[in-house]
């Protein structure tokens, strides 16, 4: 055997032993990650199942449900309203700059109303509520978890799923469609204001174009999306808070996870629901 082939043989041997050492570690790490992911999915599924069950089974806590309806619905109105207003205004401006190139200005009303009702109002309201409400839910429940208030509730014979989780899930699911309906109106109005006062559209023709193109299904699909997004925001806020780890860092991480996971899941479900409604 020549010196060169000997060197190659040694290199091959080293590479083989390196791979033999590395492979089990890589497989172990991969396996651990997959198992942890599956465990998390299972845990979340059980949490969702229990939460939904407790929404329907008595006892109910009307005062808690009312408090959450106000917190999630009423106090989110300014955020959702402002978002919808500026979105409608920007949409009209942007459409105008694009559509004038094709002499298609008459389509602006249709673009504004369809974009707002089908997509932008539900998605942006969902994301804004995820930031405002999802974070607040996770922080409040997470703090209750780390200060043993949730354990205290159990020892007082009150099920935390009924008292804390169910009211938030019910309120989230019911209030987001209402917020989105308000957002639809404000968003379309934003586009109308820009079209009339900035782009010199005729008031009557803009409104008639808006009404002509709008169908009931456009609004309903947005409201169904909103209900699903409201459920997602509330359930993920509750889940992350309920499973918060100890200390301020744990509550902070739970809050971040609640907002990030809700935002991603909202975008995912937006695609799936759009596929269901309009494909």
């Amino acid at each position, binding site marked *: 055997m020549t010196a060169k082939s000997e060197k190659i043989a040694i290199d091959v041997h080293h590479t083989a032993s390196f791979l033999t050492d590395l492979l089990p570690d890589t497989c172990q790490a991969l396996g651990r990650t997959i198992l942890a992911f599956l465990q998390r999915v299972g845990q979340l599924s059980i949490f969702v199942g229990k939460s939904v069950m407790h929404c329907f089974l008595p006892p109910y806590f009307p005062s808690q449900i009312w408090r959450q309806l106000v917190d999630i619905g009423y106090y989110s109105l300014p955020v959702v309203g402002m978002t919808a207003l500026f979105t409608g205004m920007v949409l009209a401006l942007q459409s105008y700059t694009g559509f004038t190139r094709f002499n298609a200005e008459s389509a602006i009303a249709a673009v504004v109303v369809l974009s707002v009702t089908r997509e932008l109002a539900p998605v942006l309201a969902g994301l804004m509520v995820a930031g405002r409400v999802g974070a607040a839910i996770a922080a409040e429940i997470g703090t209750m978890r780390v*200060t*043993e*208030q949730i*354990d*205290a509730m159990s*020892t007082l*014979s009150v*099920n935390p799923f009924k008292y804390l989780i169910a009211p938030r899930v019910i309120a989230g699911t019911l209030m987001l469609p209402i917020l989105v309906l308000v957002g639809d109106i404000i968003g379309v109005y934003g586009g109308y204001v820009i079209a009339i006062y900035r782009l010199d559209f005729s008031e009557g023709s803009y409104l008639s174009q808006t009404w002509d193109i709008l169908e009931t299904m456009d609004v309903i699909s947005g409201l169904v999306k909103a209900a699903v997004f409201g459920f997602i925001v509330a359930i993920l806020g509750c889940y992350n808070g309920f499973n918060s780890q100890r200390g301020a860092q744990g509550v902070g991480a739970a809050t971040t996870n609640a907002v990030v996971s809700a935002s991603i899941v909202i975008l995912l479900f937006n695609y799936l629901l759009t596929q269901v409604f309009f494909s």
Partner: protein
Amino acid sequence: MSTNGKQPKLKISGVKKHFGKKIVLDGIDLEIEQGKSLVVIGASGTGKSVMLKCVLGLLKPDEGSVMVDGEEITHVRGSERDNVMEKFGMLFQGGALFDSMRVWENVAFGLIHAKGVDRQKAWEIAIEKIVAVGLKPEVGNLYPAELSGGMQKRVSLARAIAKNPEIIFFDEPTTGLDPIMADVINDLIVSSVKGLGATALSITHDMASARKIADYVAMIHQGKIIWHGSVKDLDNSGNEYVDQFIHGRATGPITRRVA
């Protein structure tokens, strides 16, 4: 701790619990007679709080059983669990008061939401309990954040006894209090437990507190009960672990690793 042939009020048998590879409880056996007070002592991190949570059903033990009045409660769930919890009262280490509610609402929480007592009646009971723990009735309208640590402990005690429970659990009741306030809380615990005729299970590493509130003492070490007996025998236990612990000596069989 001996039951003298009588059915124990609370019986814990062979309870084991681990988290990952760490074995926290390694077969706990304890019994408490009706109306007696058992204090479990032990260093931090020996499994005292986990044991209490297993008894309360806040954690599921891996093995073993917990029985109340001869009935197995380890795997009881739903409304049956609520019925069991009706017999329990718990004072948490940090108070665990609901900070979004006024003091009286904290005390009346279980009465209103679990027992269905109307708010006016629940308010009357709450104020009665608040006065019983040495606070003025006006305190009922404050929020927990407006109270001192000692006052919060008193409110937590008032909440624990509000439903007139049969068994009361105390998790480090004097932690974070000055010695005088700690003694006041100990006196309140003794008077509350005796007044209700309740059975008490406490965990602490405060020996002054243990001596004051215990009829019996058990010591937990590395997830096992290594000694139990009457509080009168504590100083003559003949157990070197107990001797080291009650005298607070740094040297002895209990070694603490410093990371």
